[in-house]
């Protein structure tokens, strides 16, 4: 009986682990920036659902390769106010301005841990 339940649990876990990278491939998934500060969330899904296409941001504003913006050294709020990166749209005209609604994107260390916690746990079990 106990083995049977354990088997089901493992199958379920494999299902969860198997499905999330596939989801990520569809629309880029969620990006969590941890530099220069922890942590900023970007949802590809939400932005694509608003009618934006990949080319609207890639390339020009953001390179396709993950981590490029974070390594550039100017991925800061000041750059955003100058119209770079997210600031190209988040200027108060096309979308809410970068210097408002801070916590819409900034999920903080708490938010980061909340998102990463279960995934890390799942990896450990794996």
């Amino acid at each position, binding site marked *: 009986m106990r083995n049977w339940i354990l088997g089901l649990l493992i199958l379920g876990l494999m299902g969860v682990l198997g499905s999330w990278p596939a989801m990520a491939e569809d629309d880029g998934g969620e990006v969590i920036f941890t530099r220069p*500060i922890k942590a900023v969330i970007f949802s590809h899904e939400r932005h694509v659902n608003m009618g934006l296409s990949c080319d609207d941001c890639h390339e020009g504003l953001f390179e396709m390769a993950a981590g490029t913006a974070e390594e550039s050294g100017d991925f800061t709020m000041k750059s955003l106010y100058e119209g770079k990166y997210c600031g190209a749209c988040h200027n108060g005209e096309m979308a809410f301005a970068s210097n408002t609604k*801070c*916590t819409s994107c*900034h999920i*903080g*260390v*708490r938010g980061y841990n909340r998102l990463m916690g279960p995934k890390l746990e799942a990896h450990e079990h794996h």
Partner: protein
Amino acid sequence: MGFKKFSSWLEALQNEGTEHLPSEERRRFLKMGFLVTGVFASGSLLSLVSKVNKVYGAPEVYRRSYPYRPHYSMVLKIDQCVDCERCKEACAKTNHVPSYGWRTNILERRIPVAPDEYVTEFIPVLCNHCNVPPCVRVCPTKATYKDKKTGIVIMNYKKCIGCKTCMEACPYNARYFNEEKRAIDKCNFCYDTRLSKGEKLTACAAACPAGVRIFGDLSNPESQVYQMVHNPERVVWVLRPGAGAKPNVFYTKG
């Protein structure tokens, strides 16, 4: 002017509206409000009083007297906090705070704005260095005391017996038991680690990338904290005012 005369004079006044009043005029009006509060507290004047409190947020008693010089204080612009925890890191490094302890913390509040929709607010908290500190009152050994010069609530670790009564008394949960020191530890505005060495800011204020933590001397009209707390246009409040501890840590937005 007697009370009857005064009230009839007050009722005869025309409402000019506040939209076009210059700020100097507003300031004078508000000052008059305080004066009236002190002398008469009855009848139609109460509405005047409640308006004053609405504009000022924090009760007047917090601001009139400054027993300490400098009177250290912190103003926190909570809507700018993004929980990056640089302040916590800087504090831990500067003051050797162990992983299980805290001198400052960041709370999170989710405010529902629509079904399945909420806005997040991060609230930095620390010792409020109260003017009437319950922790000092309850300490049986006087290990926790209010510094006579600066008003900072400081721990004398040698005197602390670890009874944790102060932890219970603190309305702000700003204290923890430090296993290594075998004593209660808490924020002291970096008094020993920075201020006494000539630094002007606490470690957390210096580390904040968003300018959330504004630290300074509340008794100095030139300081930013003074100007923020005394600005009649700005809403300023304190945590748990009902505790009556009269904190020196203020909250505001923008």
